[in-house]
């Protein structure tokens, strides 16, 4: 089957083919979700090579689970997200979580501000520290909806929430983060 044929297939069709042993169908799923999974991992990891390694591991774990996988109304990418989150927990076991936006992003922001002759908009170290103080669900909704720029629908599907609940969560999360960055969350 050609790559063009595969790219026209739905996730459900590709999953069925992959379960039947057609590994290239799983390769198509990999190509389809490589970027969002990588970017999610990269948003939480300083080293891009670590994010690349973990991206492949996410899909390898998903492939191993494939014989048991059943469509229960949630997108396949939401399952990949659950695996990615779990792998991050393992990755950071016994270590401080990395915040991919501390040093590197602050420097980039500084450089951009210098280039455009404007002041840096936010103190990214303060943002980074404030982010780590947020509850996990607040961090996640900000990552998916704001940092990665997912639509509310996509973010809701990954988070396992309704779109309405995701909007409410985002509203609360942004308010908390901004208050914390401004130092008036006491």
């Amino acid at each position, binding site marked *: 089957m050609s790559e063009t044929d595969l790219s026209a297939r739905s996730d459900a069709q590709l999953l069925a083919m992959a379960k039947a042993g057609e590994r290239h169908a799983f390769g198509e799923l990999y190509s389809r979700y490589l970027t969002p999974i990588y970017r999610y991992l990269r948003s939480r990891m300083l080293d891009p090579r670590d994010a690349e390694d973990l991206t*492949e591991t996410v899909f390898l774990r998903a492939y191993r689970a494939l014989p*048991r996988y059943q469509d229960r109304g*949630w997108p396949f990418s939401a399952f990949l997200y659950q695996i990615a989150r779990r792998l991050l927990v*393992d990755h*950071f076991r016994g270590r401080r979580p990395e915040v991919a936006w501390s040093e590197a992003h602050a420097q980039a922001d500084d450089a951009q501000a210098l280039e455009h002759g404007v002041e840096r908009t936010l103190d*990214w170290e303060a943002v980074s520290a404030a982010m780590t103080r947020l509850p996990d669900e607040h961090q996640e909704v900000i990552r998916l909806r704001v940092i990665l720029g997912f639509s509310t629908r996509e973010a809701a599907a990954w988070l*396992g929430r309704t779109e309405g609940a995701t909007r409410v969560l985002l509203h609360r999360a942004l*308010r908390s*983060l901004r208050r914390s960055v401004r130092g008036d969350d006491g």
Partner: protein
Amino acid sequence: MMADELLPTSPDSLDRAIDRILAGDEPGPGVSPEDAVLADFAVDLNRALAPELPRAAFVAASPARLLRRIAGESGARSSVRPSPLRRLAPALVLVLLLVFGSAGVVSASATALPGDTLYGVKRTWEAVRIHTTVRAQSRATLLVVLADERLEELVGLIVEGRSEGVAYAVSQYQAAVDALLAEEELPEGAAEHLSHHSAVLMQVQAAAPPEAVGAIETASGTSSHGQQVLEAKEQGISPSELAPGQVKKTEQAAPDTDE
């Protein structure tokens, strides 16, 4: 501007404003000043922190590499029988903890799953936290966090294919939800947590081994029931009117439905 200042802050208008600003437009009408500021803040976060796309070389090479890894997978997974020493390990770790009072061990146990060496340390530390949390509201907030933690453990076991621990993890999840439901004062959004639990359980159930599906369905029933009890409490209805046998099963929220 006076009219703007009277606009209520709203998750919906914030959501729309973020989309508009990201698309290069103005926040749009009907956005309160507070939400406009939050939308600008969100867009600042996006512009500064959005991770880059994967490297072209990685995108080009990794599908073939993954397929090779898949092809090389034997599929045979060795069954690990815990050794007597491994079974004793949590007790040994606890003794060491008591002797050395190591905060590092407690910290390292934070991500332990049932069956892991440090799991006993993690649970002991949680018990200490519960018993030393006096304020009712703080205690209820902690119990929500612990119910979340039991869910994370359940998800971790499923994702890692460790089905032998799933039944125990489900029983612990049920106990955590029961403890939460028994609280008089509940933090805002507790019901929403349990609604989220149901959805996550459905997501991971999709790939759970057959022997674990029943246990996960049990956990899912626990979260659904708990959600209903908490919602009833929030509305001032007596929880006793919502005993498990009396609660009608509700459908899971679909991922693309709105509230």
